[in-house]
């Protein structure tokens, strides 16, 4: 499963940025284009892990994601949501849900990364190994979002499920909730997302604009 996630991430990133560029071209307005992209995506997931690099005979998919060993579920979710929006005009997240996603990413990053780099005596990353207060807080946040019918809660549920099923090598719950790429994106988009009005955000996300 870890290698599947490894092979998904590079493709999600490539496809997301490729779509943005390619859809500006008139040639790609054809209705078959979305299906072509989905086919390419599936082919990539199937074949990228089979192409070996010279170094240690590891697959190209693993090589490309050697640095990004654990991918958070919100990052995979947000890239898939962007793809769905771009390819099929299927708006899975409302503006408020994007805002929740960015604010969750920003607050988690601010809590986690400075301390993980040595700021202070307390390391919140250690809470990811079975700290009951951390689990209770996460469950409460998810419950509140579910009661508010906020779809970001579904990503948190998926992260919890991935952690329970140990779908990645990491045994730390934080690695299923946040990663540095999601953290950086959240730091960029969280504050502006607070000031976007309904009129200014037809596609519900600054990320999509």
């Amino acid at each position, binding site marked *: 499963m870890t290698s599947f996630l490894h092979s998904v991430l590079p493709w999600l990133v490539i496809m997301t940025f490729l779509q943005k560029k390619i859809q500006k071209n008139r040639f790609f307005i054809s209705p078959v284009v979305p299906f072509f992209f989905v086919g390419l995506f599936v082919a990539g997931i199937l074949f990228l892990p089979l192409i070996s690099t010279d170094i240690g005979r590891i697959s190209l998919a693993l090589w490309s994601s050697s640095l990004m060993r654990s991918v958070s579920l919100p990052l995979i979710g947000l890239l898939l949501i962007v793809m769905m929006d771009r390819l099929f005009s299927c708006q899975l997240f409302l503006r408020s849900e994007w805002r929740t996603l960015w604010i969750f990413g920003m607050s988690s990053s601010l809590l986690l990364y400075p301390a993980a*780099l040595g700021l202070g005596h*307390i390391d919140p990353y250690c809470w990811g190994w079975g700290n009951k207060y951390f689990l209770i807080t996460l469950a409460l946040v998810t419950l509140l979002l579910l009661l508010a019918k906020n779809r970001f809660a579904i990503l948190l549920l998926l992260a919890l499920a991935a952690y*329970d099923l140990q779908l990645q090598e990491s045994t730390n719950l934080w*690695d299923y909730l946040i990663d540095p790429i999601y953290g950086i994106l959240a730091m960029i988009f969280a504050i502006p997302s607070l000031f976007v009005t309904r009129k200014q955000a037809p596609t519900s996300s600054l990320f999509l604009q």
Partner: protein
Amino acid sequence: MQRPHVSKPWVWIVFIFLLFVLSAVSFLKREQYVSLPLDLDIPEGNSLTEKQQSFYLEEVIDPESTYAMAHVASITELSDGSLAATWYAGSTELAGDVNIYFSTKTKNSLKWSEPSVIMSRSQAAKDLGIYVKGLGNALLFAREDGILHLIYSTITIGKWSGSSLNMTSSRDGGHNWAKSRSLFLSPCFNLSELVKNAPVPLVGGGWVIPIYQEFLGKFPELLWLSSDADRSWVVKKSRIAGGCSLFQPSLTGLSAKKAIAFSRDYYASQKIWSSQSNDGCRTWSLPKPTSLPNDDTGIASLRLFNGSLLLAFNDSSNSRDTLRLAISNDEGESWSTMATIIQEPNGDFCYPYFFRSRDGLIHLLYSWQRRHIHHVVFNDAWVKQQCSHNTPTLISTTTSMP
């Protein structure tokens, strides 16, 4: 724009039910971390060790080596009393040709076995399924069951700050090694975790291993491992101190709940720092400098049977040409230098590593001019004898080249 409907109440009720199920599973998983043993397993001397004659020996583990650089050694004991050592060696630090070497010495043998490569860059890449730029610090340890455990660092990007820790084990005395697995210990791309000093065993199985981070800040940490080798290792981490200067901790258990950690200092204090824990390494006092000098070099500590602390260190503020032992009879509050292991002008004798074997002997490994790994063996009686001298005693100025 379409928005798929998930607005029916029963859908959200299902999600809430799922949340309860998943949270319950998470709480069940939590048990494996909570049930980790926390008491330190402190070896005690017996009447046999108390009657021992003073003993001291120095030898070279890799006398016929052809590599240009050898560094960061560790040693442990197999179930039959044989010794096993690892270190990394190659053309230079961080080079792609650096391998992790392994050698053993059986109980009655006079020589160490021919060093063999137990981990190479390509093997690590194959095992871990990642790009590996190079290999680095390795730590070998075992309990009475004789299963050898190896924690080693792989570098994916940059220099030491781009390293991460991995683990493998051998059930046949180091002939065959299991497929390595990565230890995920940092949220920042899992980078910059390193190991150097000896682990402390836990009562009931398991280990607490001093590790350190050196990405933007350098600081000492502890890695906790369960002992059950048949299932996945339960791994978690805790912190000795934050900051950006203290690293390469050496952990020594003083009693089941009491421990002391000494750290190397990267910045200007030029002192060895210490921190104490009275609750089984869960919380630590703020680090304070000791009277011993440290020019950003590795240290190692060990508890003697009489409760005194022994520290191996470079006794200089500006060089690594003197490797000395210091002793403390008040749990690290005050120190006196006791013996000189080696001293040569412009020498480089560093990265000491302490280990006590089951027969009570104390083993000290160190990097000799970064060319060879030297092995010093002595006992508590020898330490007692050295302490009877008032001034530091020069034990060896040997240039003991093979």
